[in-house]
């Protein structure tokens, strides 16, 4: 890959990020609202105290002045203080990122691996019962809204059968530490992870299946068979590697959405991640928190898109010469 190609892509990504930073500020201020009045409605506050709060929240002065202050701070990576927790937005986001990365990361990984396997099986035995069964199943879970699927699993496994806790990340009354605590968390993560895995599964399975079907029509597979290779060898060494290309991009792009990917599921299972944080911030509205979250979400997408583009350029030389 040429240096120019990489520089061009990186600069384009940075430009997008700059646009997002500016856009974020106005996005939450398009509709006129008053977070201070809303958050403190019915509280024993004098009008002077409310004025003071607005100064503190950076809501005084004109939109232009507020924007300049916001830019200065954002450039210094200071995302401000949350209206609701009174703590720096940065530390709240940092703290809540890990449960999300764990949950969505594990689910993405599982759904990618399982989805690819299902896609291979379905394509290789196309129009068999196995194909119809797996494709039908993944299509069904893929087309269900994730919050609905989540509620179904919650009602079945947590409420009716009682095998899993109904929400949260740890058993709040347990004293467990170390490995026991880890298992406690895994126990809590099982249902949300299962929901997300099932929800993402279909995408990978379908892409892998159709990609492999395309590859299977290629002449070099006929040649491979003509050489006398066994079916398994043809599939594993000749068909699958070539069919994986679109899946690789899909994985890279989807990793960009790991941080923001599970708002509904986190809300259903009270999973204390970034999705839940967004959900709570919207209620204020907690403007600094929303700005911070949207910045992080967009930055993740931009970064992984850049990775996907570079990766694609590496895997497929046609891209970088265009």
């Amino acid at each position, binding site marked *: 890959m040429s240096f120019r190609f990489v520089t061009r892509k990186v600069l384009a990504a940075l430009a997008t990020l700059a646009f997002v930073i500016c856009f974020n500020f106005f996005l939450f201020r398009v509709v006129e609202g008053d977070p201070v009045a809303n958050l403190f409605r019915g509280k024993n506050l004098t009008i002077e105290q409310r004025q003071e709060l607005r100064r503190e929240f950076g809501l005084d002065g004109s939109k232009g002045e507020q924007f300049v202050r916001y830019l200065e701070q954002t450039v210094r990576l200071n995302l401000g203080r949350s209206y*609701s927790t009174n703590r720096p937005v940065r530390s709240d986001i940092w703290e809540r990122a890990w449960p999300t990365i764990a949950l969505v990361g594990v689910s993405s990984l599982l759904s990618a691996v399982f989805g690819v396997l299902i896609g291979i099986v379905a394509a290789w035995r196309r129009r068999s019962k196995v194909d119809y069964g797996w494709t039908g199943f993944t299509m069904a879970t893929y087309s269900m809204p994730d919050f609905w699927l989540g509620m179904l699993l919650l009602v079945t496994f947590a409420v009716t059968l009682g095998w899993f806790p109904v929400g949260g990340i740890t058993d709040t009354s347990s004293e467990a530490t170390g490995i026991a605590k880890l298992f406690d968390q895994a126990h809590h993560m099982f249902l949300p992870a299962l929901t997300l895995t099932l929800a993402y599964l279909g995408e990978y399975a379908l892409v892998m299946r159709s990609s492999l079907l395309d590859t299977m029509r290629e002449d070099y597979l006929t040649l491979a068979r003509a050489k006398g290779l066994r079916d398994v060898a043809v599939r594993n060494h000749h068909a699958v590697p070539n069919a994986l290309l679109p899946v690789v991009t899909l994985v890279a792009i989807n990793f960009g959405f790991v941080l923001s990917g599970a708002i509904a599921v986190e809300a259903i299972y009270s999973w*204390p991640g970034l999705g839940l944080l967004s959900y709570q911030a919207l209620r204020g509205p907690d403007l600094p928190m929303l700005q911070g979250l949207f910045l992080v979400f967009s930055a993740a997408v931009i970064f992984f898109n850049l990775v996907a583009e570079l990766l694609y350029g590496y895997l497929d030389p046609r891209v970088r010469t265009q």
Partner: protein
Amino acid sequence: MRPAKLLFAATLIVVAALGIAAVAAAQSDDGKKVVLTVGLTSTSFDTLNPLVGYSVPDYDVWIPQYDTVTRKAAKDFATIPGLAESWEESNGGKTYTYKLRDGLKWSDGEPLTASDVAFTINRAREEAWQNYDAYVHNLTAKVIDDRTVEVTSSVPDPKLPGLGDTYILPEHIWGKFDAKAITKYAADDGVGSGPFVLEEFKTGQYVKMKVNPNFWEGQRPIDEIVFRLFTNPDAMVAALEKGEIDAAHNVPSEAMERLGTTTGIVAVEGNQGGFDEIAINAGSGLKKPHPALLDSRVRLAIAHAIDKQTLIDKVFLGLGSVIETLSPSPNPAWIPEIPAAEQFDFDLAKANKILDDAGYKDTNGDGVREMPGGGEPLKFSYYVRSNSDTAKPVSEYVSGWMKEIGIELDRKFVDSDQLGPVIGKGDYDMFHWGWTPYVDPDQQLSYFQCDQIAKADDPTLYNNDANWCSPAYDKLYKAQNVELDEQKRMDIVHRMLMLLRASAFYQVFALTPDLQAYRTDRFEGWLKQPAEVGPVIFSNSSPTYYNLTPVASSSSGGGGISTGAIVGIIVAAIAGVALVFYFVRRRSTAEERE
């Protein structure tokens, strides 16, 4: 690698994990600790700093942690001894001398003295601490000796001798901060004087409190209180039914009937004076409403065309009660009695007659009345808060009834934080919203003074959301504010509320309770505040936490993962890995063999 077999193996692992989880759920740990778990939803804790935190759940962390000089009785909010065992009045009711109990200690062992009390009151006044200012604005505290503190008010203050909202903070911790730093302090030191102190706060997840061994009434028989946050109300109800939690706050109304008939669970409609009203722009603000609304006969007709009982039955699912006037306090004594003959009964014929007699006729036959003498139709803007569950159905009923009396409502849907500025600018005819009052009626009553209406230089700073201005009301407000005789003060307050009601600008229609439920199998001693009608938790001074005891022979806490289950999971995991390994190996050796 055979994908089909790998898939089969992996599916087996999932099934195995499910099975193990079932085993894990069947067992539960012995529960050496007594843990009270309270589930709550919809609002989260913000900061646990008692100076600046504002969300409702925060108070239930401060109340058990920071005892107050006087407390509010569970029954009727009467002032009862707290850290102070007695007090004496002097200076015509402006000065109170409190005698603190002997041997008071903070949870960290430091002595709690009059100096902590004076520190809290004086710093709060000087720096106008957000949550304290309304109570200490006119107060000065003076240390007489370690156990005696003298509090003087610069004006007659009917709230005294009550100091039940002034959480006394440990000076040896809070004294370190200056005026700015003190509002930013995370308040995670866990030092308090009440029965429980903060142990751990995980934003968005839970708050844990542990028992305070130095509590002056003696250590409570509960080791820990956990407030657990749910974002999914149905999951919270399920957790209560399963016994994962002992009590739930903000139970969805659909679940109340079921919980009420479940053995071992008590559903509570906790009335705290919260109410819902339909407000009409009274026109004293920045913009006038539709001219017809300035005619008291039109407002009266509207009042007779709103069926309060139907709104409660259909929209609030029967959870709530009809109210004729604003409720300024959770204590029902502050609400005046309205004779049956004077009530705004639901009577569409009467409403139509009032409008007919006043000359509002439908001259063009389109079903909407016009101003007397023709002209502008009676079409009013009505704001619906899109983030409220009840605002939309209420608006549907109300606009239906208005149609029947020849009034058209132009419904506009906005978010609460957007409605705020709209009201300030006076850019509305009607809206539906609500309030929850403090115990002392002063605050709620203060909102309807003339000087609380938004002004042109900043239309977002206001409290008077009806844009209603009545010099007679303002005069009464000032009188009740300094009236030290409770009965006389109550009479003034009742007159104020009748004035507001007679104007028909603020049509209060329902008392809206807090919906809660608790289990009876593990703890007893749940206290309603006020007696019989109030909530058991998240009430004004939540006396429940000072009173709960475990039921004899009960086990505590939801089922955690037992050691057996952990071993089971490890075994399953190893089995799973082995299974995968086996299939992979078998395939490759087979290939080599061939």
